[in-house]
């Protein structure tokens, strides 16, 4: 009896592994990050939201008066960078547990002060400090860090600065960030022009803009309008990873939405048949009133592929 259970389990695992490999093979791997692409991204993320002389090891772009998005490479200098490691967001905030966006486990692991003479001295701050930013990192690749192996998705262990308890009297951030502004229409057009890959087949035209960054992962932007020429704001950024429509392949629940590879229209491509190839999406809301991972974004519930 015990042996037959093991055999059945092994068979199921074997079938599932074959299903995943077969479906993934249908989604051709995207191009990896090139030196030219790295320079292009550096060129679009040129804002510095800090004062005091500190230099962050990542590149920023203001999205609106309270929120920035960023890209972070394996090396902080453009000439030395070889791969994109993270995308993410910063939102103005106060260094209190009560003011940490989405709480202690919501992905905003790090608080950084607006003003500091060096970047290393700008982490965290006194309880209640209200001139700084909460940060959330989304890994776009798989790599090793001092705290362990990181896989695509929110890095919930990135440089934690636990928020102190401040009580009921939590002040709101009240500073003007250097260069803060809403994205202009010209900036939106430039961003959309760089995010010009379409990983979807059939006659699918997604209302977002993709860019391959590894063989398996794309980063994407979604504006308030599908046509960037008509858009006036950036609503979400995120990553999409190749996969199949199976619960076993979803990975973290942050990957809430699946779009199949092939469909006759974008609307028909949401979700899919059991085991179908496509892309798992993780969405990050850039809305300052509700920033962070948006698990309600086009949520699709996958079936189990281990059932027979």
């Amino acid at each position, binding site marked *: 009896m015990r042996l037959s259970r093991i055999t059945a389990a092994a068979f199921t695992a074997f079938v599932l592994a074959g299903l995943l490999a077969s479906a993934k093979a249908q989604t051709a791997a995207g191009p990896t990050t090139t030196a030219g692409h790295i320079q292009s991204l550096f060129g679009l993320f040129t804002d510095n939201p800090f004062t005091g002389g500190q230099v962050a090891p990542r590149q920023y772009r203001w999205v609106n008066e309270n929120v920035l998005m960023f890209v972070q490479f394996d090396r902080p200098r453009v000439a030395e960078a070889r791969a994109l490691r993270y995308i993410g967001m910063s939102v103005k905030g106060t260094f209190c547990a009560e003011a940490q966006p989405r709480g202690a486990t919501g992905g905003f692991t790090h608080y950084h002060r607006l003003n500091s003479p060096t970047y290393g001295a700008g982490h965290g701050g006194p309880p209640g400090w209200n001139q700084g930013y909460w940060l959330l990192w989304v890994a776009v690749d798989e790599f090793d860090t001092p705290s*362990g192996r990181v896989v695509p998705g929110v890095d919930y*262990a990135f*440089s934690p*600065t636990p928020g102190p308890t401040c009580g009921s009297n939590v002040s709101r951030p009240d500073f003007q960030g250097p260069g803060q502004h809403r994205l202009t229409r010209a900036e939106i057009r430039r961003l959309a022009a760089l995010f010009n890959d379409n990983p979807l087949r059939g006659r699918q035209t997604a209302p977002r803009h993709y860019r391959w960054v590894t063989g398996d992962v794309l980063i994407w932007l979604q504006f308030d309008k599908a046509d960037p020429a008509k858009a006036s704001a950036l609503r979400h950024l995120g990553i999409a990873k190749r996969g199949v429509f199976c619960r076993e392949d979803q990975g973290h629940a942050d990957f809430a939405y699946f779009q199949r590879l092939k469909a006759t229209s974008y609307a028909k491509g949401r979700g899919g048949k059991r085991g179908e190839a496509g892309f798992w999406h993780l969405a990050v809301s850039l809305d300052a009133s509700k920033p962070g991972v948006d698990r309600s974004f086009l949520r699709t519930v996958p079936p189990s592929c281990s059932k027979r």
Partner: protein
Amino acid sequence: MPGDPEHPFAFSPRQVTIKSGQTARWVNNENVFHTVTSTDSLDRLRPNGRFNKSLSRRGQTFDYTFRQAGTYHYYCQPHAPFMVGTVRVE
């Protein structure tokens, strides 16, 4: 530890040996946010739940009494991987 731009902060001394039952005290001697976070290994810096204290300003302290002999590693979360230390308890 000023003077080293790559590793601007450190626990000093980085290693200390005490007797079982003695208390170690960490003192923040600058206005920089640090944590004293226990970890099972200095090769894989993950909180192990033994202790994790934030010291956000100059003069703040953290005391911990080690009751059993052994080797106890710790690090500063935002200043990993260079800001690490070890307490050996005899």
